[in-house]
């Protein structure tokens, strides 16, 4: 039985098997083997279209980390169905295409493993109901994309593009995760369905807005919305099938998916409307504006993709107005924006997929994608040319191609939103149709560039890497299928509308009446504003294209170093430089500085605690009396101690240290601690002997050469440390709260059979300490032995100095 979980797992399983397969079977076949995966999945998914269209949804859960509610819950509904079909459908075509595109000399097994990983991850994203699992797959798409972009990892640009895409999309993902956690904190559920149902209770929650913005951040980075779009053009370093699949048809639409999925969650809020709508519309403009200036066909397509994604994104924003207004017969009309968004999503995948494949063919056959070198290919590769025409004109919004339909709906939506005043749109609202129209003009222009600069004009074989011809049939199948789709959707749009878009609309607007969500799509809708706008686009577009040479220089007005790209590069570079400066400034490698930090922390935190918490207290009433000889001895110790600082020779200092040690022993005697006195004396002597032994190998010490100011600082730190230690000590003396547990040990004779309490503690009550202390001593002992005996100069070669 088919379940969605298997659909997700299958690509991973096959990916895992490839390393074992690929050496056994001839290389080229591996693509065919892989091709089976999306084809099977597409067919299996497609069989669910009727039942999903009738409103059925399928939920299936396998426990993963049930303790934290993180389970594989898959949810098949109208929205995920669209994406599932795109992923498997476009996936099939792309793999088919890639079989001919990639030469057998490439490391194909890597390629297909990454591709399958991506496919599984992408399916996981769209089918996961559990937000954390969704996040898991989300990041996996970024990573597989990273690997695919860097497929030719020996190229510098590939690495650069891969890193850029990963950094941006993963950062967005991390933000999204934070947003998800906030959502979870509010709603206490990880299921998207349940979140949709319960979120209305939390719209006033403190976390509502941050969660929304963070999730949008994730969506925007993934879908290359301004200003995060900069990774997409660089991602074009990937092999063209990858660009067609990930960077136009599927992965970049994950952000769109997320926005769609969370529209019922956040869409009622006007912030959502504004952010999604305006970011989308600006991206639409910016992408198209930049696409025109490109000379690399693939870069052009990348900016075009950015632009188109912006279009879809803005439509989702506009459609959310319906949710803001709540369900009513008037508000339903705004859902059409969302409908248009979904429709354009599909259309874009078809025509953009086809165009990428066309560019791939050109690149593959002629060895270049540079518009300036291309021209006159129409005769050379007629089929490719036909496909290019279909794709471009669809993208330009011309009939009889599917792009025309969704473009009209888009114009309709931006015009209608202008009439809406509840969202405090006012005069700003007029920007929506204006920007949309300008962007569409630019879109028209670059579409023309694709077709005419490449396929018409003079053929310049001398500029090409190799003389080309029409691509092999196998390579043409996939784009042809897409081109056929582009046309057939134009003629049968309502098949798509009823079977795919309506169920998706039901997922996005669960509170709305299903029947009202799927308007009838028709190519002819009267002489209305959208149509006027389209006509305007064509007229102005043709005009602008024909005088392109004259106005293109305005792009030079934008200095290249002011671009977002250079901002990104500069940020990375500055981050490295600054962090290096900062780190090196305090990581001096100097023990003295490190010790200073410790003391500084002691001074600030502990000293600060002492004073600001008011911990100091002083009460000497419980003190034992002091005799004259004790005064003298304390004085001797102080003098001896201080004299160490001024000792001119190390031996003097050692002797003074010895004096201290011996004096402490006599204090131990005075404080009734014979065992301590004995130990202290012997240890002190042996230590002195050790000093003498080592002095043999060390030079006499010099005078300290610090500057007076440094000395003052050291002196201050030293005095502060001593003072704080003393003050806390005095406070503890004054603030004793309990009797010590050691009264118990006075029964040493009955308990442990010894009269020497200290010895009983060491040998019995706390024998474990003693045992370990012997171990410490032992380690130190043989440690000294190894330290002396094992010398690098004598030691042989070992691993780290090869």
């Amino acid at each position, binding site marked *: 039985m088919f379940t969605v979980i298997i659909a997700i797992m299958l690509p991973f399983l096959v990916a895992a098997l490839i390393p074992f397969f690929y050496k056994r079977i001839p290389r080229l076949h591996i693509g065919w083997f892989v091709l089976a995966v999306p084809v099977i999945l597409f067919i299996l998914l497609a069989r669910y279209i009727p039942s999903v269209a009738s409103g059925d949804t399928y939920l299936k859960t396998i426990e993963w*980390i049930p*303790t*934290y509610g*993180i389970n594989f819950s898959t949810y098949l509904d109208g929205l995920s169905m669209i994406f599932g079909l795109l992923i498997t459908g476009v996936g099939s075509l792309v793999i088919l295409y890639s079989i001919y595109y990639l030469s057998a000399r490439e490391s194909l097994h890597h390629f297909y493993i990454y591709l399958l990983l991506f496919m599984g991850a992408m399916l996981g994203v769209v089918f996961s109901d559990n937000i*954390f699992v969704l996040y898991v797959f989300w*990041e996996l798409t970024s*990573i597989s994309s990273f690997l695919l972009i*860097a497929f030719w*990892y*020996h190229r510098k640009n590939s*690495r650069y593009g891969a890193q850029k895409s990963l*950094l941006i999309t*993963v950062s967005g993902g*991390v933000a999204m*995760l*934070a947003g998800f*956690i*906030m959502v979870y*904190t509010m709603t206490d559920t990880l299921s998207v369905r349940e979140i949709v149902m319960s979120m209305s209770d939390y719209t006033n929650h403190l976390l509502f807005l941050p969660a929304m913005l963070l999730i949008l951040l994730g969506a925007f980075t993934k879908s290359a919305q301004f200003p995060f779009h900069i990774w997409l053009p660089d991602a074009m370093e990937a092999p063209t099938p990858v660009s067609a699949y990930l960077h136009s048809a599927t992965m970049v639409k994950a952000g769109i998916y997320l926005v769609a999925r969370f529209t019922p969650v956040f869409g009622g809020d006007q912030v959502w409307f504004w952010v999604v709508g305006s970011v989308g519309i600006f991206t639409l403009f910016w992408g198209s504006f930049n696409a025109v200036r490109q000379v690399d066909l693939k870069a052009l397509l990348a900016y075009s993709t950015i632009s188109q994604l912006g279009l879809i994104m803005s439509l989702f924003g506009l459609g959310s107005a319906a949710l803001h207004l709540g369900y009513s017969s008037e508000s339903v009309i705004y859902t059409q924006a969302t409908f248009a968004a979904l429709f354009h999503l599909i259309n874009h995948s078809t025509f953009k997929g086809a165009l990428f494949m066309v560019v791939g063919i050109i690149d593959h056959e002629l060895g270049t994608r540079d518009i300036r070198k291309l021209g006159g290919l129409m005769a050379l590769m007629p089929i490719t040319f036909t496909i290019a025409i279909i794709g471009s004109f669809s993208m330009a919004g011309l009939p009889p191609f599917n792009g025309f339909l969704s473009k009209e709906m888009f114009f309709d939506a931006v015009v209608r939103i202008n009439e809406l005043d509840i969202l405090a749109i006012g005069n700003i609202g007029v920007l929506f149709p204006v920007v949309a129209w300008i962007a569409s003009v630019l879109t028209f222009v670059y579409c023309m560039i694709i077709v005419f600069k490449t396929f018409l004009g003079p053929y310049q074989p001398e500029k090409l890497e190799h003389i080309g011809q029409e691509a092999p049939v196998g390579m043409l199948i996939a784009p042809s299928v897409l081109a056929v789709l582009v046309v057939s959707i134009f003629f049968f749009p309502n098949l798509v509308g009823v079977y795919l878009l309506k169920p998706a609309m039901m997922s996005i607007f669960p509170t709305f009446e299903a029947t009202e969500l799927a308007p009838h799509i028709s190519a002819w809708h009267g002489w209305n504003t959208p149509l006027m706008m389209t006509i305007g686009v064509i007229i102005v577009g043709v005009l602008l294209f024909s005088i392109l040479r004259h106005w293109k220089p305005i792009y030079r007005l934008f200095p290249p170093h002011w671009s977002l790209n250079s901002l990104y590069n500069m940020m990375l570079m500055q*981050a490295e430089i600054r962090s290096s400066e900062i*780190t090196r400034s305090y*990581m001096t490698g100097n*023990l003295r500085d*490190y*010790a200073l930090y*410790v003391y500084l*922390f*002691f001074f600030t*935190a*502990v000293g600060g605690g002492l004073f600001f*918490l*008011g*911990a100091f207290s002083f009460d000497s009433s419980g003190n034992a009396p002091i005799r004259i000889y004790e005064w003298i001895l304390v004085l001797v110790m102080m003098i001896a101690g201080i004299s160490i600082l001024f000792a001119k020779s190390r031996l003097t200092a050692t002797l003074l240290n010895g004096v201290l040690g011996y004096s402490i022993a006599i204090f131990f005697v005075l404080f009734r601690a014979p065992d301590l006195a004995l130990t202290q004396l012997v240890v002190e002597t042996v230590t002195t002997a050790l000093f003498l032994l080592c002095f043999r190998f060390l030079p006499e010490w010099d005078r300290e050469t610090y500057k007076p100011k440094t000395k003052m600082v050291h002196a201050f730190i030293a005095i502060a440390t001593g003072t704080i230690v003393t003050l*806390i*000590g005095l406070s503890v003396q004054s*603030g*004793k*709260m309990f009797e*010590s*547990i050691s009264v118990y040990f006075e029964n040493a004779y009955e308990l442990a059979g010894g009269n020497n309490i200290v010895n009983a503690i060491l040998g*019995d009550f*706390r*024998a*474990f300490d003693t045992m*370990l202390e012997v*171990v410490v001593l*032992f*380690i*130190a002992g043989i440690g000294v032995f*190894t*330290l002396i005996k*094992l010398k*690098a100069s004598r*030691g*042989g*070669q*070992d*691993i*780290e100095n*090869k």
Partner: protein
Amino acid sequence: MNNILVLPMVIPVLTGIILVFLRSFVRIQRWISFAAMIGIAGLSLYILNQIQAEGILHLNFGGWEPPYGILFVADSFSMLLVLTTSIITAICLLYAFSSISKERENMFFYPFVHFLVAGVNGSFMTGDLFNLFVCFEVMLVASYVLISLGGKKLQLKAAIKYVAINVLSSWFFLVAIAYLYGTVGTLNFAHLSQRIAEVGQGPLLTTISILFLLVFSLKAGLLLYFWLPGSYSAPPPAIAALFGALLTKVGIYAMLRVFTLLFYHEPTITHTIIGVMAGITMIGGSLGAIAYKDIRQVVSYNVVIAVGFILVGLAISTKTAMEGSIYYLVHDMIVKALLFLLAGTIIALTGTGKIDKMSGLIRNYPLLGWLFFIATLSLAGIPPLSGFIGKILVGEGAIETGSYVLLALAFISSIFVLYSLLRVFMNCFWGETIISEEDEVPLKRGLLIPCVLLGVGTALLGVGAESISTYVNDAANTLVNPNIYIQAILGDQK
């Protein structure tokens, strides 16, 4: 009676001593070492399950009832760490078999590793403050020797700083113990907790607690991490891996223990300080991680970031956050070991640690490259590898308590982790291959297998996070409810 509890510490001690006698039989030393570690792993798993059945276990040494004697306490938290420690050490030993020089093996390398583990395990298990000091010393002195074992100039330089700073920190520890003993007159954790709760954590006790914070921060590398990068990049990889995986963790453990069991009454002071320190640590670590072009440095600063991250959990101190910290702790031990071993292997193969001096290694050593990639992703908290669940739980805790700054720092730092390691990966493994097949240094299987094991470990721990969730849950539960601990130790005495 639970005499079994002493074994995780005494087995390594005894093994260490016996290996001293077997100095010249290197092969025997190796296998005894390895077997001992596996044995401890098995034992600790057994104890861990025992705890789930019977609650916290403890062993009173010499039969002296707490608070008078010293005791070992096994709760889920400590045993989880003991388990991880022994597994990781076993793997690092495997790596050492083919990487540590004969000279070192002859110079008691294996005994020192065992003593180190003894100290680490003892620190995890002891229920007595002064004994914690002693266990720390066992661990530290062993680490002093290990860091300088081999006597290279660089090692000795690093060792001097490492020793000096740790001597200072040990001194502060003693001072803190003296103060605390002077104030409340006892050393047993449970008893200390009870007594502090009884009189309330006044200003003086809070000040003393900050002193403890200083001590453990130095060990853990929380804010006071400056000693760490130098020290961790000096010794050979097997040792560096052990250091990276174990040493800071002991400090973190102690901090978690002390600030949940003893000084949990003034969180607005202590836990705020910890939070601030954790934040600065993550920033500093992040900056450091991208500041250097030496693999060892990058890896070391990544240790620092993780320390900050884990202690965010303590600063927040909700049960969820604690669970997150514990998950992350275990995860970090595995992946840090992996990372240090990989870094060491790369350096061994190329003879340099500078990332711009190598290129295209993935063609020569594909598996190594992918392992590094996995380690990178895992450390960045990319699911479904092991860092993920800890990251989510800590994040949850941060949001629950409104600690947004910490949340932001924690999550942003993971991007720095990703970037810093990705940079290494792309510089070393990608790019034009510069090592021709003739010049290729063969990658010993003995070096690769341990890395593979750890790589599989991080994946398994991520995918199979559920398998340890019971333990983690119980561990966090004990941490946030000190009374469970006190009841288990002092029981009906009060």
